[in-house]
């Protein structure tokens, strides 16, 4: 009896250790994890959309060097066209998962903007409209990394945004608002929309490429050159993005459930820094696997001399 109890406890513990959380399962489907992936293939099949004011110069070149499809525009219409064109031009790297590094406007609409200037270029889109537009292009997963993103899933604004919501962050839509069609049915969409389980204000960190190891910089340079782009110098990376890349167990994603509560919570600064260093370490490890340290070789002159000697010996024979 005692032995049986021990076995049951051990089995329970083992099951708990190997249990796969819904977030892990979702990430495994949306962004398969590969420990031996090349640096230039980290983002294969993943598109990332940046609001220009949440980015840094040359940011998209960094993500393109890592294999992502990157879009950084204040106009959603341009972004949607870009996604469609990308999947047509590169079917072998077609975007299946879309990560939104945009504003959530306190959960009132996905916003892209150049700045907070009221006259700046700015556009909004509803979650339903985004689904409606990118589903024919082959996108199957949308991960929203925006503030209070679960509020975006409220049924009242899921298809059509409310421009008169009274929120000060809902600045003039100088480039328009994209809503879903009236006859579009969300229940028929095959796209899975994932948001952080806990609503809070998401944050993005600005980093420099020189913070990466020389091997990583070399890998990024080679990838950028192969794409015909200039190697980047800096990049912007969100905490949620880093959590996804690192498969951080503290990350919790939710699908399809909205909330009404508006949160003003900010993550502590130390958390972002810790994630950033882990992210840098992870990319450095990948590049180290891809470009292992070269062994010291015999100088060319000596090798040439040896080769010449061997040739002369052969000639004599």
């Amino acid at each position, binding site marked *: 009896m005692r032995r049986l109890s021990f076995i049951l406890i051990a089995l329970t513990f083992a099951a708990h250790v190997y249990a796969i959380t819904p977030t892990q399962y979702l990430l495994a489907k949306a962004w398969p994890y590969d420990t031996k992936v090349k640096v230039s293939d980290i983002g294969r099949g993943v598109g990332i959309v940046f609001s220009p004011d949440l980015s840094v110069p040359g940011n998209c070149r960094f993500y393109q060097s890592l294999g992502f499809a990157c879009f950084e525009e204040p106009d959603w219409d341009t972004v949607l066209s870009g996604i469609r064109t990308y999947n047509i031009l590169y079917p072998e790297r077609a975007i299946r998962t879309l990560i939104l590094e945009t504003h959530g406007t306190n959960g009132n609409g996905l916003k892209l903007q150049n700045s907070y200037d009221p006259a700046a270029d700015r556009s909004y889109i509803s979650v339903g409209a985004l689904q409606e*537009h990118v589903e024919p292009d082959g996108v199957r997963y949308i991960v929203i990394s925006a503030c209070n993103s679960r509020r975006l899933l409220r049924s009242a604004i899921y298809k059509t945004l409310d421009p008169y919501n009274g929120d000060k962050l809902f600045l003039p839509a100088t480039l328009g608002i994209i809503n879903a069609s009236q006859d579009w049915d969300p229940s028929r969409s095959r796209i899975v929309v994932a948001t952080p389980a806990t609503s809070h204000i998401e944050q993005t960190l600005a980093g*420099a490429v*020189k913070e990466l190891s020389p091997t990583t910089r070399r890998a990024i340079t080679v990838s950028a050159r192969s794409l015909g782009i200039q190697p980047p110098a800096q990049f912007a990376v969100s905490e949620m993005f880093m959590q996804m890349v690192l498969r951080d167990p503290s990350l919790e994603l939710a699908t399809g459930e909205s909330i009404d509560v508006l949160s003003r919570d900010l993550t502590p600064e130390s958390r972002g820094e810790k994630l950033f260093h882990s992210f840098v370490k992870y990319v450095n490890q990948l590049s180290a696997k891809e470009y292992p340290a070269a062994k010291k070789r015999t100088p060319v002159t000596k090798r040439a001399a040896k080769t010449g000697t061997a040739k002369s010996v052969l000639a004599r024979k």
Partner: protein
Amino acid sequence: MRNTILTLGSALLLTLGTYACKSSDQSSVNNGTPASATVSQNTTGDVNTAGLNNSTGAYSGGSAMPSGPANVSAETPGEQNQVTSGNRVGGKELVQAAPSDTSYAGTGQTLITSSGSRTASSNVPVTTNTTSTTTYSTPTVVQTAPATVAPNTDTTATITTTTPSTTAEVTTPTVIENTTTTTPMTSSTQESTTSTTTTTTTDTSTNNTTTHTHRRMHKD
């Protein structure tokens, strides 16, 4: 008695032989008629109609794919040819074509901001084994020139500056590791570095580590 028995036996054999001959003749006569047992059942579909959906025996399988939506097979190009070409029916490969776009109202003319060129031109230098010769010249100022030097004058030049350059020619056998330099990364002066990113710096004198934070942007 013995003769009687023989006679009767002979008669019996004769009788049996005649009967046998009659039976064989009758079978040869009936042999010309078609068999009556198997003909009539073909009119209503026989028992071997597993997988057939109608009485005519025509195959109509494949109407529902096992793992795909029903409308996929109907939209699959070339499906008709595949069925009628005599290949194994039902084993066709599902070609999931993207449905036509009828919802998107954009112009569709905007290209990706990234350069879509696929020319891989920078992978070459990785394996080049060349010998690079670097010449370092260090001009040395022996004596400074006078303050004013008038050009195009016939006076003797008062410039006594000579540059006996100390030239050091270094022949570096190139190793693969050295050929792929990452100079573009380090000389990133073309972009405005607006971010305040700094890295962890270690003070070697006091052996203290000072960590600076990165600039943060709120996605409100």
